[in-house]
């Protein structure tokens, strides 16, 4: 339980720091880079190595590559939809989430399993 709490607090802090850096920067396309910062990975991997060892962390990082490709597809799709259709950002970003799940798990199954 205490490990989950530490992960929650460290993760929240690291994600917030990168989000604030992104908020401060202009132009918006540059600030957007920080929306894909490795914040969750930074918060997780140090702790993972300490508890499970470095090969476990390396396996996580290997799968993270599939997650990153899925992120590229997801963010590109959101950008394209937002530019072409008059839809609310919150709805588009949430409704496009299955794309991330489909691609991430699909790539993992076909490429990394």
């Amino acid at each position, binding site marked *: 339980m205490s490990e989950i709490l530490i992960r929650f607090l460290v*993760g929240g*802090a690291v994600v917030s720091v990168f989000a604030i850096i992104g908020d401060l920067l202009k132009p918006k396309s*540059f600030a957007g*880079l920080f929306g894909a910062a490795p914040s969750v*990975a930074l*918060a997780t991997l140090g702790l993972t190595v300490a508890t499970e060892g470095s090969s476990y962390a390396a396996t996580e990082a290997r799968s993270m590559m599939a997650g*990153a*490709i899925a992120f590229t597809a997801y963010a*590109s799709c959101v950008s394209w939809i*937002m530019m072409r259709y008059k839809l609310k950002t919150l709805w588009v970003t949430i409704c496009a989430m299955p794309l991330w799940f489909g691609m991430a798990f699909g790539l993992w199954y076909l490429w990394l399993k």
Partner: protein
Amino acid sequence: MVWDGIRALVPLAEITMEIKVDPSVIGQTKWYEYAIRFLFGGLITAIAGIIAKKYGPGIGGLFLAFPAIFPASATLIEKHEKQKKEENGLTGTRRGREAASIDAAGSAMGSVGLFVFAFLVWQFAPRYSIWTVLIGATLAWLIASVLIWHVRRRS
């Protein structure tokens, strides 16, 4: 000679000129908007750990690149841009949507850097100190993302 090569590849001065810091955004952001991002960031980090424990690092690792705070951040950008336009007596709906779209395009470029980060950690974590690897991989993420952004902007 090596330095000249690096300078040719990474036009730092040109990139620095294009980037601006706008501290006024800090005042526009409400405390609960920070809290939402902290909450989502914390939750996905905790959930990634739980999933890795239950289903193994192969599945858990996918969530290290989950767009956890993306909906909250994009919505915040849309809202702030809309507010700015409305303060000038204009309807900011379209501007807000466009700003969110541009931010998402930036995140797509950053996610290529995220792939580079993951690749480096996968390759070097078993051989070197994790903190050295994480610092190096984070720098690689930043350099790769900024270079892609710069090349896209110029083209």
